């Protein structure tokens, strides 16, 4: 570094353009960036392995999964000639596609059947219009026996659905490589000839599930807060020895399997379970009127509150730990009674902890799967259970991805709102 003296000398000879310059005349900002570059590179190299790991195992799979919610290559990949020929056909025109389209379909299906991928296309289109799966399977069996010429008649003979305009409209509509269909289904909507509309009342399921997931998550968050706040307060104010002991009890659930804990709730809450037996025994309830506390929303809320409680207690505890006891003393010395001192002075300082705990519990519960699955019955399941169903049972990954994307967007939106209302810098984990 040059001395102050040199700076003075060189400053005199430099252009006076208002830019701070280093001793050798290069702009100071440029100089500083150069000096910091090595340090930045070193820090980057330090985090590079983790960054790579996260990219490969977290960001990439999620991006791929989210992409599936709009991806629709299967139609074009399986029956490329048909898609091309069908582009000429006007779906609004009340006439079946011409012979060229049927010939293309015949050629495509012959290859598809040989590769045994035509049933996959059938299942894919079945999501949009039921019956398509059977149509493709049936046609697949007949395709080898078809003769050359007049494919139209032969197809319709194989299955009369090929003579139905609606079948062709579905194929045509979903032959594009991208589709909003999954998202529409996820929002209980469908595309009809009059545009996008909500499905008939009795077919709607996802909006209700999203609503239930949100309200139940809020209920779980509130009950975690109500139960966790006094415990965190106790932990933060007991002597260290006792509070360490209690802290182990709080952390104990983390060390037992989630499955075990959830199953334990089954034992406790079922109609012939411990709690009902006890209540009957103390004659609080009649044997005939045992409480239904499991396989419904009550069961889900009770079990999930228990499981997520530590996520509320820990941030609350660490924030309360930092609140010096002299604040409450000061409030009392200024004339506040116990309640006022707590409510006006202590409680506001715990808000960052409440915020952190509430966000944690809410976000965890909104995507919770295993507990609602085990104790939720039909009325207590969450949207994630539906997503899991589409992933592993119905194999409609596109719809699962769309539901997942909506869920993710919802969480992001709530996070954004939280930031706007409470401020994310008000969140403290310790």
């Amino acid at each position: 570094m040059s001395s102050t003296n040199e700076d003075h000398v060189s400053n005199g000879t430099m252009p006076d353009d208002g830019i701070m310059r280093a001793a050798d005349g290069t702009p100071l900002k440029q100089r500083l960036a150069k000096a910091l570059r090595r340090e930045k590179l070193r820090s980057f190299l330090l985090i590079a392995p983790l960054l790579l790991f996260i990219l490969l195992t977290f960001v990439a799979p999620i991006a791929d999964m989210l992409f599936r919610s709009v991806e629709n290559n299967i139609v074009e990949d399986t029956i490329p000639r048909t898609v091309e020929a069908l582009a000429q056909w006007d779906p609004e025109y009340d006439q079946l596609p011409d012979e060229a389209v049927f010939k293309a379909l015949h050629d495509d299906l012959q290859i598809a059947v040989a590769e045994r991928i035509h049933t996959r296309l059938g299942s894919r289109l079945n999501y949009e219009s039921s019956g398509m799966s059977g149509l493709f399977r049936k046609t697949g069996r007949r395709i080898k026996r078809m003769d050359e010429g007049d494919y139209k008649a032969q197809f319709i003979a194989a299955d009369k659905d090929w003579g139905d305009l609606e079948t062709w409209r579905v194929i045509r509509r979903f032959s594009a490589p991208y589709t909003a269909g999954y998202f529409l289904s996820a929002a209980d909507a469908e595309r009809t000839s009059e545009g996008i509309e909500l499905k008939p009342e009795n077919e709607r399921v996802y909006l209700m599930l999203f609503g239930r997931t949100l309200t139940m998550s809020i209920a779980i968050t509130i009950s975690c807060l109500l139960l966790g706040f006094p415990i965190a307060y106790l932990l933060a104010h007991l002597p260290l020895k006792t509070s360490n002991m209690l802290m182990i009890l709080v952390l104990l659930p983390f060390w037992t399997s989630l499955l075990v804990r959830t199953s334990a709730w089954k034992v406790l809450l079922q109609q012939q379970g411990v709690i009902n037996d006890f209540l009957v025994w103390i004659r609080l309830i009649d044997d005939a009127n045992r409480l239904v506390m499991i396989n419904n929303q009550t069961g889900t809320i009770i079990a999930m509150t228990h499981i997520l409680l530590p996520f509320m207690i820990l941030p609350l505890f660490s924030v309360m730990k930092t609140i010096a006891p002299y604040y409450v003393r000061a409030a009392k010395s200024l004339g506040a009674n116990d309640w006022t001192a707590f409510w006006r002075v202590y409680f506001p300082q715990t808000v960052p902890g409440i915020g952190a705990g509430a966000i944690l519990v809410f976000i965890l519960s909104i995507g919770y799967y295993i507990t609602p699955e085990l104790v939720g019955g039909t009325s207590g399941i969450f949207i994630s259970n539906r997503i899991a169903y589409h992933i592993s049972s119905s194999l409609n990954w596109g719809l699962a991805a769309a539901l997942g994307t909506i869920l993710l967007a919802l969480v992001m939106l709530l996070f954004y709102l939280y930031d706007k209302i409470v401020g994310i810098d008000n969140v403290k984990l310790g």
Partner: protein
Amino acid sequence: MSENRGAAVRYESVQKSYDGETLVVKNLNLDIARGEFLTMLGPSGSGKTTCLMMLAGFEPATHGEIYLNDNPINNVPPHKRGIGMVFQNYALFPHMSVAENLAFPLQVRGMSKSEQEAKVNRALDMVELGTFGSRRPAQLSGGQQQRVAVARALVFDPELVLMDEPLGALDKQLREQMQYEIKHIHEHLGVTIVYVTHDQTEALTMSDRVAVFNDGVIQQLSAPDVLYESPQNSFVAQFIGENNKLNGTVTEVSGSECTVEVAGGIKLRADPVNITGVGGKTTLSLRPERVELQPENQMDNMVDGKIEELIYLGDHIRVRMNVADNKEFVVKVRNRGERRKIAKGDIVQIGWAAGDCKALDVVE
């Protein structure tokens, strides 16, 4: 008890124990007059803060009674005592603005909005922070936070204000400035202030009376000058100000003077403040500035000492000497402009008056 009527605060045989085994405060009896500035001074663990906390109501007395304006307050909760308090770390509520902090004690007393505002503004003006009302405590400097804390403790016009090491977190210069400000506020408002500190300068600067605490007992309760000039025991002598000590045996007591023989058979004349009698051990206490280096006139005590070290400090020179086997004997020589021909290793004569040398209880 009747002679104590009118005291703002009275501790009567107060004892305090936290664990049931040791007493932190041992049989405290103390009267604090209305309008007095009383400082509880002592090292950490001496029980001074505990005494303050019992008065504020945050710690219950194990035994005895505390009276506030002749009313026993042992069973009165803190918020009903009406005592203003300034805490060590200010304890300003971080989520409230300065004005809200000041309005807090007025709000909980159900004061009207306009009255609150008037009082808050007056309090802010008093500590010269009139324009800072809307700021958060974190946006203020340490000194400003300190003033807000003082203003908050005074805004509801309490008769008694407690201060628990309020200047501990400030740097030296600010601390001195605040000492004068608190002193002026006290003189101006006439409130009773009980101040706790371990800083003797602070205690001497501000107080009407200082109670020196050690080991749960008040060692001496006096005005600052008395405390410095006439310490009652060796602890006070050493805790307040700088002090030379010489251990010896009393050989003679005659009226207002005694003779003490120290190491090397040197006999010194001293003021018998706290001795057991002839033959008893004693510790002589002597302020460094009361010792004359190379005295021109005959003095009560004259001894030779070897200069071990000279430190130039501008207004005075610190001379560390070996006197009667005590190598830590310090003499402060005022810088009068004359050049003294003294150097390390010289053996010079020093002298002091018998009245400046206190014979106190023995310390090893």
